[in-house]
């Protein structure tokens, strides 16, 4: 039992570092360091750079273009990316719809979609939640009626992250409402350029436009875009949720943020001594660090279990809960650190053109805190995750 990397692993780590050094676009890196938002083009540019290197399929089977890395390599890879402050991968194609397609899709669908996903030619988004469905996903109402070789979609999806940029959307629709709510759900792939689709922004507390409503008004979709069988969509949907594991990026990314915060604390004064020497601050940071260590090791235990062929199963709910709680705690430490200098609104719709005396980091602390309120809600609220653990792990 040891945390040391083998010589081969160390070489691989150096290879990742070299790649990042050379191919991680400088202008994107700078924006990420400043906490600025990336444009659609920049996000694509980053993904393309990775795709060109052949490293997009780190979680994919080799037959579909996966890298074939073992768990340690995947860990090293994602850790290095996070520590370098790279943007996280847009997961909707790569980690969510792709496994559904290669597991349940037709040969045509695999050929048509998988290579384009791996190359980030298409930007995917998710059509799951509906207003009123909340955590009770299966109660969805968005309708699809078959007419000849097409399905006609009507209804509304919501909380569609980055839907404003997307080329394709995977949608859960109701094709039959005669049975139980889990039955009669169909999983269908829709080109966002199809007439009748409207994307409306939802502005969140931090003032950002990240999520959307997606409206379907008589949207005609070829029947060949149904994945698997009509009415079996709930099975695929659950498979996808199960695959939407909390990414390993969580811990290394928090470590990077924590480190920069500790450095800033040396020059931050709430009283006449720097915050870094303040006992309350030290205790808060130490306890956070300890929890972060535990989170990271829990991720590693999961990876190790997977390597031994065990399924990580509902334990991923555990990572989701703890990881998101820690993200929120970290953002709280940053807000407290900023004090009243965190008040000037540095969010994307603020007076970012005005030169404010407070530092950019201080100004960004509250928008980040506010943005992070969502992480315990999206992807299945933490309350739902607890229900899952209670049932699936503890058997109660």
């Amino acid at each position: 039992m040891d945390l040391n990397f083998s010589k081969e692993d160390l070489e691989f780590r150096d290879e990742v570092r070299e790649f990042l050094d050379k191919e991680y676009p400088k202008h994107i890196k700078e924006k990420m360091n400043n906490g600025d938002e990336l444009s659609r083009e920049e996000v694509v540019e980053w993904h393309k750079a990775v795709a060109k290197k052949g490293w997009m399929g780190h979680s994919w089977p080799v037959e579909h273009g996966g890298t074939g890395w073992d768990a340690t390599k995947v860990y090293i890879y994602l850790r290095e990316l996070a520590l370098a402050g790279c943007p996280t991968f847009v997961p909707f194609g790569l980690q969510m719809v792709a496994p559904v397609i290669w597991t349940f899709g037709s040969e045509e669908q695999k050929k048509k979609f998988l290579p384009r996903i791996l190359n980030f030619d298409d930007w995917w988004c998710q059509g799951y939640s509906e207003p009123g469905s909340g955590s009770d996903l299966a109660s969805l109402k968005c309708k699809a009626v078959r007419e000849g070789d097409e399905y006609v979609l009507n209804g509304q999806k919501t909380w569609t992250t980055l839907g404003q940029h997307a080329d394709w959307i995977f949608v859960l629709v109701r094709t039959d409402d005669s049975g139980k709510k889990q039955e009669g759900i169909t999983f269908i792939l829709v080109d966002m350029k199809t007439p009748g689709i409207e994307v409306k922004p939802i502005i969140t507390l931090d003032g950002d436009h990240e999520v959307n409503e997606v409206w379907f008004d008589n949207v005609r979709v070829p029947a060949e875009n149904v994945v698997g069988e009509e009415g079996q969509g709930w099975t695929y949907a659950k498979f996808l949720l199960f695959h939407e594991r909390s990414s390993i990026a969580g811990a290394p990314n928090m470590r990077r943020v924590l480190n920069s915060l500790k450095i800033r604390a040396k020059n931050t004064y709430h009283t006449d001594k720097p915050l870094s020497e303040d006992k309350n601050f030290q205790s808060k940071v130490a306890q956070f660090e300890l929890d972060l260590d535990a989170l990271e090791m829990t991720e590693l235990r999961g990876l190790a279990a997977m390597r031994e062929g065990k399924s990580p199963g509902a334990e991923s709910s555990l990572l989701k809960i703890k990881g998101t709680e820690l993200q929120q705690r970290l953002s709280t430490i940053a807000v407290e650190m900023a004090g009243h200098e965190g008040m000037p609104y540095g969010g994307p719709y603020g007076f970012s053109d005005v030169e404010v005396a407070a530092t950019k980091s201080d100004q960004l602390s509250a928008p980040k805190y506010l943005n992070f309120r969502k992480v315990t809600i999206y992807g299945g609220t933490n309350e739902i995750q607890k229900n899952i653990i209670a049932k699936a792990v503890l058997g109660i």
Partner: protein
Amino acid sequence: MNLSFTDEQNLLRDSVSKFCGSDYDFETRMKSVNSDSGHNPEHWKLFAELGWLAIPFSEDLGGLDGGDVDLSLMFEEFGKSIVVEPYLANVVLSGGVLKRSDLENKTDLIEHLITGEKQISLANYEPQKGFNLDNVDCEISEDGSVNGLKTTVLNAPNADFFLVFGKHQTGHAFALISKDAKGSKVTTYKTYDGFVSGDLHLENCKADAVFSKADAVDILHQAILEGIICVSSEAIGAMETCYKLTIEYTQQREQFGQSLSKFQALQHRMVDMFMETEFSKSFLLKVLATDDENERTKLIYGLKNQIAKAGKYVGEEAVQLHGGMGVTEEMSVGHYLKRLLVITNLFGSSDYFLDKYIES
């Protein structure tokens, strides 16, 4: 021992409550927030007409001789609707400094405050100088010229005058500076709770007057203590609305075939929110009912610590229990969290005030 409010106090609360209840719904508030000045001049006029702006001033200053209890009652009601009208900045902080000061024309200025004709902002904090009130770089020279940079000056864009706190050869002093004074520049911005604020740059700026050279720090301290009572009361009002909004929302919202409010885990969390609010109210009451000055000051530090924790907790839970809707700009609940978060950090963090409490 007497924990009751006087009839006048009950009347005042009813009148503020009525205004907030009937004239200040969430939509109205957001209109003010999104307006240029960040508040509604009509409301401000109304506040003046109702005599609210005169409350904490003594009769000989043209005021109504109200005290902390009156302010607290008002602010609790303000908090329930997260009122953005600049009462804190003008009446409590600037008014609080002025009324205690030795400024010659203070009666005139206070009269303007009371009628609502003029607005005045207190400028004391500076970038990276922390929460200790006397820790400032700004210099007020012998001849009344002022140099320095003041940050998060509440309500700055609407201010006709600034009360600038700075170093002076006698120790510390205040400088009265009009908004058009040469050498002054205001950078205005919104704060994330929807209020307006600004930085005040002063370069060889000539003050209209320099005052309270003998006891500026103490005056500032007293005004801030009063400010803490006000924002704490406001937070309590906001907390009350938070748990009530959450009850309402979870009762209406159905999931898995029953209303969310029927899930026991959520019920217990709403009870916790309610309890935090109630115990915060009790602590505030203790502050208000304590006469001894040292004891009161210590308790105010404790109050700020408690409110910072309880307010943040209740606000966060309210958003969480609203689920996805809670994090949208469209729902009011998130705006309560924003204001509570600002109050948490205003005048100093929760840790800072715990240490002050321990040291007192």
